[in-house]
């Protein structure tokens, strides 16, 4: 009998599995890399085993270490979570060979689905609709656009869209390289690319006694770079297309039966709403994921099921009831990533000072049904807690925020509100983008497809929720909160009025960087008649404390509303972490960096310094100290999140410092190299710009 489960994973999914284990009375074992030593998933588990090192290849991808950890800690079973080794048949086999229970499908099923090329053939044979495969060598202009995929890939990695024939060969080569580095298998294949495809998947559950459930469908069409961002159940397309659910469920069951599946799995389809590749409302098999999905909570919310419990029961050989419960209501999940959508989705690493989502009714479990006590509401599955450090080595997903309500409209409104009001302090996130999508008329109309960001404009969608005027008001609040803190902390004259002068001449000045545009200077003075902020004559102070500032703000800049009715009272919650100041208000969350009153000259970055734009690992260096470099010449190449980023010389000059070596991980902002535009080359003695 199962008594203890090791989760060979990290972050929110480890915590998710532990939560079910606790509910089932099972002991829990965590594994952790050095970078994760202080992560919440370690604290959640009864027992934890260290995996020395931090890179995935040294830690969460080391099957023998994970099995050793299970044996050492007395865990009888291994749950792989998602990602890492979750779909690695060799690992599953090794787990079983070690006498442990593998909480996942049979090895053979993983093997069959491991190769996408083979899986497609198999599914075509089982009567599951598939898109015609294209041999990369035979692609013609008529086939365009096409999608290149890694056969061993998953989670969108290694996928590339090709729209011009000229680029095909290069893209295939790049995709092969990426596939080899990410999955150890360079095989790639091509498919017709559906511009307006919709990603619809079916959650399946199978026991070893022949019962196969199609539990429910999910739609995950809102994607960035082929990675899901917002997922929901049920699918708006399926809801409005007669008979589609039945056909989908049938195909999913057929797919699972064809490979003798057991446990939880997901059959993914690409739906062709407009009939680009065939009939309208047709759908085509993409892949079968032989593991728990990131987005499983939306299905849990609408069905009330605990899918992880079902996984554990299936692994123990327990039979499923004859059919799944009926779904009710609507659930939407948003993935909160530490990344900057406006800057090429750059991942951010660093400390999450605070992550608080208002209105959370459950964590790692579905809220009660609409109408029942405790439901509906917001569910939070978070991998981080206040003070957590998000390392560079792993996926930058911080948390999943899931809403559950009677209708889709209410679920979207609830989730948007929870996200907009969440306190997420410390890292740049995609939160504002999520809120804008959830409030977008096209999203609310159910018109979601994989090209959503391209169609509606990523620039507009990624725009901060706080307008420039709101950012300025937030900066004023930040300045006043800082002033209140300064008065509170003053060791002398703390009882005297803030910034008091018997001969007033200069205003108090605080400067903030907002990450967008010029710094904001707040000039203010407390006078006998109240607060005076330069440039904001009609603003008045209600109260200012270090954590809360209340202002009366003219509601209409043009002064059209007469008198007092035009004044709006606004509350700003202010949190400070060193120079970082986070201001939360209904006007939108704002992160500010308070500029120091004095710059320490020794802390200045030398001119010509190349800074790491993202956290990552150095994969290549393009020049050596003393080399003469040209403007735009790549000096250092970083790999982060499976993407390559070249950092180029800003101007012609001589490389006077190179502070990194290949393989070295670097934090954002680290000085990688210095190009001196005036120095003389050590190699040939020429000045930059001179012919060599």
């Amino acid at each position, binding site marked *: 009998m199962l008594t203890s489960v090791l989760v060979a994973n990290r972050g929110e999914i480890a915590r998710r599995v532990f939560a079910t284990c606790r509910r089932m009375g099972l002991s829990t074992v965590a594994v952790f890399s050095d970078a994760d030593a202080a992560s919440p998933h370690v604290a959640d588990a009864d027992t934890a085993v260290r995996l020395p090192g931090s890179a995935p290849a040294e830690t969460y991808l080391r099957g023998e270490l994970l099995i050793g950890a299970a044996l050492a800690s007395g865990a009888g079973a291994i749950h792989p979570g998602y990602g890492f080794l979750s779909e690695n048949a060799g690992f599953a086999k090794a787990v079983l060979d070690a006498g442990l229970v593998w909480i996942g499908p049979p090895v053979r099923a993983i093997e069959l689905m491991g190769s996408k090329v083979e899986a497609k053939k198999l599914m075509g044979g089982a009567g599951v609709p598939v898109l015609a495969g294209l041999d990369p060598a035979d692609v013609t202009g008529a086939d365009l656009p096409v999608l290149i995929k890694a056969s061993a890939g998953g989670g969108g990695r290694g996928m590339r869209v090709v729209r011009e024939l000229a680029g095909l060969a290069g893209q295939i080569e790049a995709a092969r390289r990426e596939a080899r580095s990410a999955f150890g298998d360079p095989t790639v294949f091509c498919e017709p690319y559906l511009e307006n495809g919709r990603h619809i998947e079916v959650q399946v559950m199978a026991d070893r006694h022949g019962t196969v459930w199609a539990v429910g469908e999910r739609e995950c069409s809102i994607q960035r770079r082929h990675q899901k961002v917002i997922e929901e159940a049920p699918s708006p397309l399926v809801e409005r297309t007669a008979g589609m659910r039945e056909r989908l469920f049938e195909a999913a069951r057929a797919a699972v039966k064809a490979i003798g599946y057991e446990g939880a799995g997901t059959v993914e389809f690409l739906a062709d709403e407009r009939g680009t590749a065939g009939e309208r409302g047709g759908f085509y098999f993409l892949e079968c994921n032989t593991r728990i999905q990131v987005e499983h909570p939306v299905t849990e919310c609408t069905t009330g099921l605990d899918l992880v419990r079902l996984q554990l029961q299936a692994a123990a050989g327990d039979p499923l009831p004859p059919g799944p419960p009926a779904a009710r209501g609507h659930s939407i999940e948003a993935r909160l990533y530490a990344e900057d959508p406006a800057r090429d989705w750059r991942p951010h690493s660093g400390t999450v000072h605070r992550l608080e989502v208002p209105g959370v009714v459950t964590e790692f479990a579905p809220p009660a049904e609409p109408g029942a006590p405790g439901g509906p509401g917001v569910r939070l599955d978070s991998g981080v807690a206040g003070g957590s450090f998000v390392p560079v080595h792993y996926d930058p997903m911080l948390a999943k925020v899931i809403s559950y309500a009677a209708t889709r409209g209410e679920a979207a409104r609830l989730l948007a509100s929870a996200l907009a009001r969440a306190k997420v302090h410390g890292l740049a996130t995609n939160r504002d983008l999520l809120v804008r999508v959830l409030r977008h008329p096209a999203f609310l109309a159910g018109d979601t497809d994989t090209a959503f960001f391209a169609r509606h404009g990523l620039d507009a969608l990624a725009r901060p929720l706080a307008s420039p005027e709101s950012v300025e008001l937030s900066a004023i609040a930040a300045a006043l909160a800082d*002033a209140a803190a300064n008065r509170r902390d003053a060791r*002398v004259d703390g009882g005297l009025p803030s910034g*008091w002068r018997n001969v007033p001449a200069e205003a*108090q000045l605080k400067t903030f960087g907002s990450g967008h545009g010029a710094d904001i200077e707040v000039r203010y003075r407390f006078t006998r008649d109240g607060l005076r902020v330069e440039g904001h004559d009609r603003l008045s102070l209600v109260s200012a404390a270090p954590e809360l500032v209340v202002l009366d703000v003219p509601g209409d800049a043009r002064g059209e509303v007469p008198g007092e009715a035009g004044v709006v009272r606004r509350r700003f919650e202010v949190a400070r972490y060193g120079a970082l100041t986070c201001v939360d208000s209904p006007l939108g969350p704002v992160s500010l960096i308070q500029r120091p009153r004095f710059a320490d000259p020794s802390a200045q970055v030398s001119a010509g310094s190349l800074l790491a734009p993202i956290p990552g690992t150095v994969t290549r260096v393009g020049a050596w100290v003393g080399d003469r470099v040209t403007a735009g010449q790549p000096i250092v190449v970083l790999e982060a999140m499976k993407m390559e980023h070249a950092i180029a010389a800003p101007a012609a000059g001589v490389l006077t410092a190179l502070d990194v070596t290949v393989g070295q991980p670097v934090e954002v902002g680290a000085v990688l190299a210095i190009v001196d535009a005036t120095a003389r080359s050590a190699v040939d003695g020429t000045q930059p710009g001179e012919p060599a």
Partner: protein
Amino acid sequence: MSVLRSALDTGSGAYAAAAAAMRDKLAEIEAEHAKAIAGGGPERLDRHRRRGKLTARERIELLVDADSPFLELCPLAAWGSEFAVGASIVTGIGVVEDTECVIVANDPTVRGGTSNPWTMRKSLRANDIAMRNRLPIISLVESGGADLPTQKEVFIPGGRLFRDLTRASAKGIPTIALVFGNSTAGGAYVPGMSDHTVMINGRSKVFLGGPPLVKMATGEESDDESLGGAEMHARTSGLADYLAADERDAIRIGRLIVKRLNWRKRGPAPRATVAEPLYSAGELLGVVPPDLKVPFDPREVIARIADGSDFDEFKPLYGPSLVTGWAELHGYPLGILANARGVLFSAEAQKAAQFIQLANRSGTSLLFLHNTTGYMVGREYEQGGIIKHGAMMINAVTNSTVPHISVLIGASYGAGHYGMCGRAYDPRFLFAWPSAKAAVMGGVQLAGVMSIIGRAAAAARGAPFDEEADAVMRAMVENQIEAESLPLFLSGLLYDDGVIDPRDTRTVLGACLSAIHSAPVQGTANFGVFRM
């Protein structure tokens, strides 16, 4: 605990008239403050800024802790003189790294920051405050040296400036010089006599004699940098302890120096939690009647400055023309002496002498709220010993060693000014309200006395008395005395530390008491012989 109950009728016509008169006077003072703030005027300020320089006040703003209070001292110095209001220097008490310091900043936009006689007096007053209250001194130096046309008044007494710095140092009071520009000839001794000096690369110029003077003296050809540049002083002469990159950097370093002083105040700390007065400070505008002949109750003032309006009165039934009692202000214990009906009689003088001795026993600072026309005159009072009783009070005030603060809220005439701890009696701080007047006596009285004496002299000579000339003389003297007893005039002469808005009184006193408590507070039992 005895909470004062205000009887001030803020709805009355008298209140409104008093407040209106006070507002007029405040506007007048504010206009003079604006002159001090304007420094050398827009053109010079502009030129100064174009050179990448900060103004004296901007330097101070950067030097003091963000959002901390700054009490500027003697902003009206040189008012009524040929020199600019403010005397080309800004002085005050500011908080730097949680340490109260006396800050002295030359205003280089006014005649190159040169020192005229008023500049000197204002600097010396700042030094006095630093020494008496044990406050570190930070000099923000940029001065062209002495104002040469008035050198006879500046040169010889001005030597005290440098004497003070090293005396302060000898007493363990840190002295810091941040040199922003010229600091030459005598001025070179400001960094020279300071414990810590910061110079700014390419900006500071510190030498005894510049190139022309050196050429005249020895024939040597030289330049500014080799004679007194910051880099030279940092690397070669050793006069500069720190070489700053620019003005902000110098101020940053100055703050770091203060932080490393590990300064500890020696006086008792204030109470941690303080109750605000029960009555609005705004009402202080209407307490003092425009005509000082009309008496007012100083308890209305005390009720608006004392913590919780809590005032335990001492001897309330004896000598009622002087209110004495105990209170706290911003958490600091305080004995208060306040004139109630102008005149000091024997009883009031004796009550004051006793009260001052009690404050010395308990180590309690004293606040004098002036509204006195002096000690009572007349046969009965002379025979009753008013001189010896007044002397008792002056003896007690003079020899008392607890800190004193004086605020002239109304009249301060005659020996009453002395008994209430006027300027000559070295209060730690002395401020005036715009409503104040100080002189040997009122203008009308003085003119009248002169007229009577003139009439008597004419009678003695048997000459006819020229009534017309007497009327002209009386009017002239009256006007002159009136003008010379006003706060602007007296503040211009450095007879006070500034004219303050009555509504700021509690804050000013709180800042002063906090500064005062940087030094130990110690009473005495050692007074002069009290003539009984």
